[in-house]
């Protein structure tokens, strides 16, 4: 129990440090078309001044299979994005997600993403990644809740 409390405190401290250094904190709505269906869900992330991003996500889909009826498929975990190139409101990222599929199966997802800034607070992102050994396409609508300057 003591170890758990120490672990939680360390994680919280790390988050606070990251949070304080973050340029922006954003929420997003994701849609990802995979070979097994289109998953939707929210994501939270912070972004540093140098455009590195880290956060957490959740997405799910309800599939109907003739032999098994309705099956809910979930995928949640943590995400990170490294900026590769930035120009005129576009930022190209290499992305990486790690998490659990159906609360059971460890999944690692490499990908690439293009973010287009629409306004200072809103942007859209389109990406492609490898899910279940097939190409998946994703779209994301992101809103910055606040920037450092507004804190």
């Amino acid at each position, binding site marked *: 129990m003591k170890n758990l409390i120490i672990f939680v405190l360390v994680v919280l401290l790390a988050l606070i440090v990251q949070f304080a250094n973050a340029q922006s904190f954003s929420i997003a709505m994701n849609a990802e078309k*995979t*070979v*097994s*269906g289109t998953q939707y869900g929210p994501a939270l992330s912070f972004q540093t001044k140098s455009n590195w991003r880290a956060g957490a996500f959740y997405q799910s889909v309800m599939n109907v299979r003739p*032999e*098994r009826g309705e099956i809910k*498929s979930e995928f949640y975990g943590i995400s990170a994005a490294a900026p590769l190139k930035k120009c*005129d*409101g576009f930022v190209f990222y290499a992305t990486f997600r790690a998490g*659990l*599929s*159906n*609360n*059971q*199966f*460890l*999944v690692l997802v490499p990908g690439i993403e293009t973010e*287009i800034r*629409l306004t200072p607070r809103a942007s859209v992102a389109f990406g492609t990644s490898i*899910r*279940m*050994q097939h190409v998946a396409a994703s779209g994301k609508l992101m809103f910055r809740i606040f920037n450092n300057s507004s804190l």
Partner: protein
Amino acid sequence: MRKRNINIGEVNTIAMMLMLLGVLVAACEPAPDLFQSFTIKKGEHYADVRFPEALQQNTLSFQAIFDNSAQYDLGDECLQTNKNKLFGFSDCNSMHHENSARFAWQWFNGQLEIYAYCYVNGGRTEKFIGTVPLNTPSNYRIEVSGSSYSFYLNNYPPVTIARGNVCDRGVYYMLWPYFGGSVPAPHDVTIKIKKLF
């Protein structure tokens, strides 16, 4: 040289043109053959090298087609009943000789027999499920639950095998076609597999 900024209107126009182009190209594209072909060469056990892959759902569902190369005679009944592995997965963070679930096959009595083939806490369990015709797709499914593996083949009754003591969360790596047993393929053997999602 003056730098030119792209405005939102231009971005929208480009996006619309790309989407239209995508629709036009997709409309002309023939439907892909999603069967993957695995050839186990004469004298080999494994088929072609593949990237590692892990199960991401509690069901592994696929179709498989065996052609005439699935017929073989090893000249010894004991060797002939060695199970060749078709497709399956290792269980949570286990090596496949500890905990795993696969379909297996053998050519015996002039027919292609399909088995449920599991390692449970290091012990091997095999159960006959049914036979499948050559050159015809058959439906296979393994469902993993908290305490058991359930094997489904076409319209045969499901076969259930108790699961070992394994974790719940982790890596379930895929196990691809393998010929043997101890004896390698006597000739090239080709199996086509299409994963279903």
